């Protein structure tokens, strides 16, 4: 078992290292901008003195390396900096709205996005495993071909196409769910779920296809094994052979693909959140990109990358744990 622990620790260290390098890449990318924040804040009427004073306030007169470690230290303490648009606004009106730091802006939206991802996962994972098992059971029938065409189509359509089709049929023509997901603090859970339903369904359609195809492929791969033959010869029903004998052995690749799809969910929310005006981190990201609110863009980027790396790491560790051959590398 000690061996496994070392491998997992190695992976974790590698993940951390990747994250560190990614943070450097993001930082450098942002600093490629011509001019700097000070000039952008002041806009057209920037006098050299004002620029110099703001530059000093924000620490922009320091060398790049010092600024990077300042930023990194802040991030580790949970301080993601001051939002550009908000700081601008606060100084303009002379009021302090109370949400000027990036962390304060991001926290509630991050919770919303996690909520959306959770609902989606709760619908998509059971649904896709169920469909995958069925498709493996009735492979090469009309059902299998129909699901194949359907999943291939929904994998390859852009998210906004799926989203608008769902809006058309489930919100406009048959008003079952609201087409805009206005969500606020203190909303009853049921209502919140109802309002998040259309974005969740859109994401479900997009990720289900991949997971279902992997489930089907993983099970079909196993069907030639001797123990499946044995189970069949014992006279078990096809459903029982697959659920009891094939599925547990196919779990490793399935868990792997689920983790990868959750990683995709975290990033795939961007477009979907914009379509449904869902107040999540993706929407914030796009707004900040359009406003060139660099500190927020930088922070969102880092959060997305962290989630992506963590979930990929989980997938990696899961597949090591579930596969004895990877546990004892030669």
């Amino acid at each position, binding site marked *: 078992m000690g061996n496994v622990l070392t491998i997992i620790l190695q992976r974790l260290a590698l993940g951390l290292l*990747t*994250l560190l*390098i*990614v943070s450097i*890449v*993001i930082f450098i*990318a*942002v600093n*490629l*901008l*011509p*001019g700097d924040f000070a000039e952008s804040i002041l806009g057209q009427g920037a006098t050299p003195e004002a620029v110099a004073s703001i530059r000093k306030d924000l620490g922009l007169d320091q060398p790049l390396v010092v600024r990077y470690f300042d930023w990194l230290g802040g991030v580790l303490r949970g301080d993601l900096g001051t939002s550009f648009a908000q700081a601008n606004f606060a100084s303009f009106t002379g009021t302090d709205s109370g949400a000027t730091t990036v962390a304060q802006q991001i926290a509630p939206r991050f919770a919303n996005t996690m909520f959306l991802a959770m609902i989606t996962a709760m619908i998509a994972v059971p649904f896709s495993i169920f469909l995958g098992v069925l498709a493996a059971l*009735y*492979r090469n029938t*009309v*059902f299998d071909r129909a699901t194949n*065409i359907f999943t*291939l*189509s929904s*994998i*390859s*359509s*852009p*998210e*906004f*196409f799926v989203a*608008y089709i769902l*809006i*058309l*049929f489930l919100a*406009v*023509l048959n008003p079952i769910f609201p*087409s805009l997901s206005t969500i606020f603090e203190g909303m009853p859970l049921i209502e919140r779920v109802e309002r998040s339903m259309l974005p969740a369904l859109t994401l479900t359609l997009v990720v289900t296809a991949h997971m279902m195809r992997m489930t089907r492929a993983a099970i*079909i791969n196993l069907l030639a094994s001797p123990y499946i033959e044995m189970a069949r010869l014992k006279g078990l*029903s*096809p*459903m029982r052979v697959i659920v009891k004998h094939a599925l547990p052995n196919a779990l490793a690749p399935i868990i792997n693909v689920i983790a990868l799809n959750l*990683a995709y969910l*975290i*990033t*795939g929310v*961007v*477009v979907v959140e*914009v*379509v449904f005006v869902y107040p999540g981190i993706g929407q914030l*990201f*796009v707004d900040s*990109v*359009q406003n*060139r609110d*660099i500190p927020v*863009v*930088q922070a*969102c*980027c880092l959060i*997305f*990358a962290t989630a*992506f*790396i963590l979930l*990929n790491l989980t997938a990696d560790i899961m597949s090591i744990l579930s596969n004895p051959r990877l546990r004892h590398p030669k």
Partner: protein
Amino acid sequence: MIWFVAALIGLAAVAWGFRFAGQAVTGNAPKFRDMPYGVAYGYVLGAAVLAWLVWAYMQGRSDDQAIANKFFFLRIAIEGFIIFAIAAWLFRLLGRSVGTARSKKLFRSMPLTASFGILTILIYAIFAIFAGLIAPYGQEQIIPGVAANIIPGGDPELGGNPDFPLGTDQIGRDILSRLIYGAQNTVGIAFATTVLAFLLGGTLGFLAATLGGWLDQLLSRAVDVLMAIPSLIFALLLMTIASVWAPELGIPLTVFMVVIIAVIDSTRVYRLARAVGQNIVVMDYIEAAKLRGEGLGYLVFKEILPNATAPLLAEFGLRFCFVFLTIAALSFLGVGIQPPLADWGTMVRDLGGFVNFAQFAPMAATAPLLAAGAIALLTVAVNFVVDWMLHKSSGLKE
């Protein structure tokens, strides 16, 4: 919701009856005797869905305008599906009887989905190349004497104009022409980006595989880091920066976008090219070529490349889909292909609000759906073809 559940339970009873009746009528034939309950349920469910589709189609042709409007899109979808299926079938028939022996053989083993894919790609190619001849107006042309915001459908009573079957946009440009030009711009730019990504990723990947050593390590670790950032997020970050640089350098933002997406996607190509290249580099004929004293260029282009075409070609199709979708997503978010170039992603964003009028004026909602559908149709078509190619080359006959 209650009706839905009740219908499912009702179907359960019908399924049981169906199996029982089947057993009784056929004298317990093996097909019905050994039929699991789930399969019987599946047959009944499938029949119910088909019956519902036929009913909905009839509703869509109903004389009552309110009901017809409600089922308008379902009607169009069903008609479109049938027309495409027939067209694909005819195209396959054509391919089977015309052409060389080899192409005939290819078409004979082709599933309907793949022939649909090839046909669709051909149609897109024609539209993209001859957009200037096919489109009735120019993509940037603001037609004089014509109002903006003409409703699609060409029905003057609803605010349409027969000269503009899909209406005009906010500043009076013909939407149909812009859709056709969109094929040229969106598909063309995506194609160019993919080619660039392949040139970059493929060359570096083969070089890393052939030379190995520190170059391989350096490139591979750099690619690892780039791949650790989700591609759409990274593209958005870089586009933010590029949008500041573009006006200063006087280079169109679209050029930046092509380069950024090509670099991000070339990491995926690099991975594949390196993996494929490494399998080829250990072959005896490479050893022989090295002993003959051939140079690096010869090794990469004359020895490795020809043997790596099949996997790279399939990857090209998939990569094209990804690039196409990324560009569409960026344009949809407002940072991709810039106006006045006509582009499908931007059109969806600009016209998306019209979907909400679908209940009263179904034609008004068609413009954004057509633009989004045009993107979806092409990616689906490419995926169908790639799926078939992979299936064929892997020899899977399960």
